[in-house]
């Protein structure tokens, strides 16, 4: 007799647990307002990334096309993957030959967005940008030159 009672008990509690589950999915079915997904390319205008989001490395330029990079290679050393390559040139400053930045090469395809280069920079010349749409059709486009053509170093940065 006990086993018979257990048999029906099992069915009752089993069905009850199933209905509890269905109540939850039913709740979400009847509350379409709670939908959390967004439609991405359509919401580009309103989509705002968090300010600290690490998208890619950029070299900051001001309105006079000047940057703060001295070409010291600290970021190149800090980078674990060889993402950053600094090519130097020698410039005349007060009659002395001084090392300066020629080309700031950034291999986006190798970057792991670890952000170690940012604190390594002594002059705060580079920052992480918020952009995240990096897809391109040609791999070579991922190798970028970060200093603008014709740009030069800001006055007073050593």
């Amino acid at each position, binding site marked *: 007799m006990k086993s018979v009672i257990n048999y029906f008990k099992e069915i009752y*509690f*089993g069905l009850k*647990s*199933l209905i*509890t*589950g269905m*109540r*939850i*999915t039913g709740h979400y079915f009847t509350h379409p307002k709670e939908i*959390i997904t967004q439609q991405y390319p359509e919401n580009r205008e309103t989509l705002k*990334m*968090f300010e*600290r*989001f*690490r998208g890619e490395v950029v070299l900051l330029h001001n309105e006079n096309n000047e940057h703060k990079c001295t070409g010291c290679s600290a970021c190149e050393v*800090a980078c*674990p993957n060889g993402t950053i390559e600094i090519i130097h040139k020698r410039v005349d400053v007060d009659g002395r030959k001084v090392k300066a930045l020629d080309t700031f090469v950034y291999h986006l395809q190798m970057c*792991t*967005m*670890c*952000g*170690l280069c940012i*604190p*390594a920079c002594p002059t705060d010349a580079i920052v*992480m940008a918020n952009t995240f749409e990096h897809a391109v059709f040609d791999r070579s486009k991922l190798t970028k030159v970060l200093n603008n053509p014709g740009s030069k170093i800001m006055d007073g940065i050593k």
Partner: protein
Amino acid sequence: MEDVITKPLESQEYFINMGPQHPSTHGVLRLVLSLDGEIIRKVEPHIGYIHRSIEKMCEHDSYQQIVHLTDRMDYLSCHINNEAVCLGVEMGLQLEVPERVKVIRTIIGELTRLSSHQLWWGVMGMDLGAITTFLYGFRDREMITDIFEETCGARLTMNYNVPGGLMFDIHPNFQKRTKDFITHFKKKLPEYDDLLSNNVIFRQRTMGIGKLSKEDTISYSVTGPSGRASGFSCDVRKHHPYSAYDKVQFKEILRTEGDCFARYQCRIDEMWESISIIEQLIDNIPEGSFKAPTKAVIKLPKGEFYQKVETARGEFGVYIISEGQKSPYRLKFRSPGFSNLSALNHMAQGCKIADLVAIMSTIDLVIPDIDR
């Protein structure tokens, strides 16, 4: 004729390659199954499909650079992995980090554990055929990744720890967002029970399946929730407290059954514990610096250093042998997934294919963690 009738039907074992591409191996794990009908006779895991020689790479990297490589091992508990390396280096340098750093590391570590368990819960449901749980798990996890993104700058591979402290201070919104998440998640966690834990189909599919005794757990060195489900008290946070774990009250979840359901329930209970740890700390973040001053080039003294932490999957250890250079002479990671996987054959023998999927789900494998 008599012979034909009385003789039992002969059956033959056959092999199936489960993986490297299979929906429920969670990555590129290859299991060679010996099957008799649907019953599993032997499981042979073949690993190495995503081996990236992280340990070897570490021998050429500076200690700051090693940290970001550990993000790529157990990517679901990346912050805790980072913490392990940082604690190891700090131990070598005999560097005392500020209290603020310890508390923040603990909070973010517990958030990481929560997010890992949420994802595991979703995937566990999906492996057993309830696809909806997958989306619900991710829904709640999204709030945590938002917290990470705002404070650490990335959603998955955060790299927030540096030897000596943190990369930058917490975001002003951090506390508010975390509290919002806790209130939200406390309402959602009972739904997890309603959808899976109490479901009769789920209970029957997990109870008594994939049993692992306490002795076997220890001999296979299965740690984490999988080990604690068999009664093996192995919580590093309790036995060797690091960061701020010695200041908070929490229970070590222990169960004795050692089956799939115990492992499942262990993780669900751990989520409640994580919530309580975060609640204890979130209002008590001490003021101070977010980083102890370190040299630009860290050189560890000559010697051997071992630091272990409790990730979402079990005990994660970092063993550093230093020759006094700026890179370690040799670095070894003890990853929990590797040891947990070794017990799979023992657990799965005599089970059905559907059970193997459940067992794999409950030991919560992350393949890059196994292969490194």
